[in-house]
């Protein structure tokens, strides 16, 4: 079945603009409609797995018109985005009752989804910037949604750094246009293959790495994340940590570096170093935190490091081998990238689940300070069970999903000869285990404080969303089974290892000049 690509952007966009009409009275209707939209997107994303096509907007031939490209990598990202957004939206039904202006919240939420879907589908670099701005602007507003002291401060900080990143990216787009005369990523890639990098394009590459690195919160650029993610309402924290930083940061970085500019040895090293810095610094900073959501946010930085490291290792292996790459080297590069992308999908699921459980705890007890919590295991059995599943998964305990992706990364690092990288991966994994043992110990075990005796488990939609994601955490390991792997993960890996062949594929599929 072939799904027309603009649907992925149009459905959330149109729904987002319909919702504010309902106002205060039609709150339940608005909630219903928003949930229908996210679930429809999930169904569409599953239905369109396996197809690969290029959609030309307004039937203009490329490079004159704008095109949307659906390939393996976009398919994986779309799937991840729609799974997490459907769960977070379902969770919001009940959780957002404590805030006013629910319809506006739902509308901003869907705008963010529309922006992210646009980013992963766009085949035009300026359009990518526009969709990126749609997603970022709505996320700035959502971080400040509570309008309390901390939330406004975090929103402003996030917004300043996010805007600077956007300006950098726009400057990069301008330089690329000036040097290659095209905005279509396939044609830019062709021009770069022909003429190589000149000074202007090199500068643009630097701007892109800084801009997308800021959006992805890789370590030298991470300052905004631990403030912004905890300040947002819990379902939004789940969206931001689960998919936004990946769609806006890691995906764009991978697409631009691998498919447009082409990987070189320095780029591979930059990715590996950024990845390792993020992994280690994020893990160390997370262990010291006493705020539940802040700890999760720092751990996001650390986990994002794993993804970048996997992709970077792949880039390094490909770039070192150069033109005459042997089948064996290509296999190890594919394995490293597979580990990175699989970790991306896993992290989206378990980190959003962890943020949802933190929201559940916060709603039931009114606090998220680890020192004020304790002994909730009997009071909130479902939250406890799902949180344990997610913690085991993120810490890499077999047979949960996180174990498999980390295992793949370790194998790839050893086979590529980077023994020290493998050692760091195992070490950071141990740190992750410590920080989640801390969460378990202070939130669910120990003594129940006096003032929390009346705590009750949350009901309804919040539980459904958490249990859904917890089931996914257990089942995600199955994605590696031959058969399922060929439909979802392998095409995504092939897009990245293919490098420049992206441009030829797109031009051929679009029937361009």
């Amino acid at each position: 079945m072939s799904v027309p690509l603009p649907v992925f952007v149009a459905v959330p966009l149109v729904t987002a603009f319909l919702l504010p009409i309902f106002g205060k009275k039609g709150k339940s209707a608005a909630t219903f409609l928003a949930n229908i939209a996210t679930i429809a997107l999930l169904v569409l994303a599953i239905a369109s797995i396996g197809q690969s096509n290029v959609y030309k907007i307004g039937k203009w031939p490329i490079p004159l018109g704008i095109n949307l490209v659906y390939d393996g990598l976009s398919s994986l990202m779309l799937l991840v985005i729609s799974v997490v957004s459907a769960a977070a939206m379902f969770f919001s039904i009940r959780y957002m009752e404590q805030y006013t202006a629910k319809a506006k919240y739902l509308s901003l939420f869907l705008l963010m989804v529309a922006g992210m879907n646009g980013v992963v589908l766009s085949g035009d670099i300026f359009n990518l910037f526009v969709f990126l701005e749609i997603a970022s602007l709505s996320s700035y507003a959502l971080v400040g949604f509570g309008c309390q002291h901390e939330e406004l401060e975090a929103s402003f900080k996030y917004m300043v750094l996010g805007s600077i990143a956007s300006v950098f990216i726009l400057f990069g787009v301008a330089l690329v246009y000036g040097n290659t005369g095209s905005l279509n990523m396939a044609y830019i890639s062709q021009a770069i293959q022909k003429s190589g990098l000149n000074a202007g394009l090199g500068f643009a590459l630097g701007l892109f790495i800084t801009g997308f690195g800021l959006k992805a919160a890789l370590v030298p650029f991470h300052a905004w994340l631990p403030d912004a993610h905890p300040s947002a309402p819990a379902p939004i924290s789940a969206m931001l940590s689960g998919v936004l930083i990946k769609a806006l940061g890691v995906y764009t970085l991978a697409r631009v570096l691998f498919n447009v500019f082409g990987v070189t040895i320095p780029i591979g090293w930059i990715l590996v170093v950024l990845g390792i810095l993020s992994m280690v610094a994020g893990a160390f900073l997370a262990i010291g935190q006493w705020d539940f959501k802040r700890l999760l946010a720092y751990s996001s930085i650390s986990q994002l490091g794993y993804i970048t490291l996997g992709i970077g290792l792949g880039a390094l292996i490909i770039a070192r081998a150069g033109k005459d790459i042997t089948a064996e080297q290509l296999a190890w590069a594919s394995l490293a990238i597979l580990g990175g992308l699989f970790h991306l999908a896993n992290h989206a699921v378990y980190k959003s689940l962890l943020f949802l459980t933190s929201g559940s705890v916060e709603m039931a007890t009114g606090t998220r300070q680890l020192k004020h919590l304790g002994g909730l295991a009997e009071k909130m059995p479902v939250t406890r069970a799902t949180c344990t599943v997610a913690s085991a998964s993120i810490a890499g305990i077999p047979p949960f999903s996180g174990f498999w992706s980390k295992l793949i990364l370790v194998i790839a690092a050893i086979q590529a000869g980077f023994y020290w990288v493998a050692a760091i991966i195992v070490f950071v994994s141990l740190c992750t285990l410590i920080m989640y043992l801390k969460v378990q110990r202070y939130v669910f075990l120990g003594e129940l404080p006096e003032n929390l005796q009346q705590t009750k488990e949350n009901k309804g939609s919040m539980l459904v969303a958490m249990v859904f994601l917890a089931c996914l955490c257990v089942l995600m390991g199955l994605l590696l089974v031959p058969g399922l792997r060929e439909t979802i993960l392998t095409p995504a890996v092939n897009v990245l290892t293919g490098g420049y062949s992206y441009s030829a594929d797109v031009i051929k599929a679009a029937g361009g000049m």
Partner: protein
Amino acid sequence: MPYALCFLLFIIGLYCAVVKKNMVKIVIGIMVMEYSVNLFLVMLGFRTGGTAPIIGRDDIVTGGTLTELFINSSVDPLPQALVLTAIVISLGSLALMISICIRTYEKYGTFDITRIRRLKG
């Protein structure tokens, strides 16, 4: 030379956004950066003595192709379209930033970011 000045404007904006302590000045710095990039985009399409890229009756040779003069003298219209889009986006982000500044001022009673420090660690 104009490119260098444009880059200078970009650096001034970046300096203002990074160094200044007043929230409104930071916003102004970011806007200066955005406008310098817009200026850069417009300059990419600029041609000395160029004409508007609108095809008139005189510009078409028999057979439907364009005259040499038109191709060599018309400016590139694409960057202008990009700048229009970029201006609209920066207007949206400016409105949001200023409204967050106002709400912050209501809560904290100051625009000084060194005194707005509840988040730590």
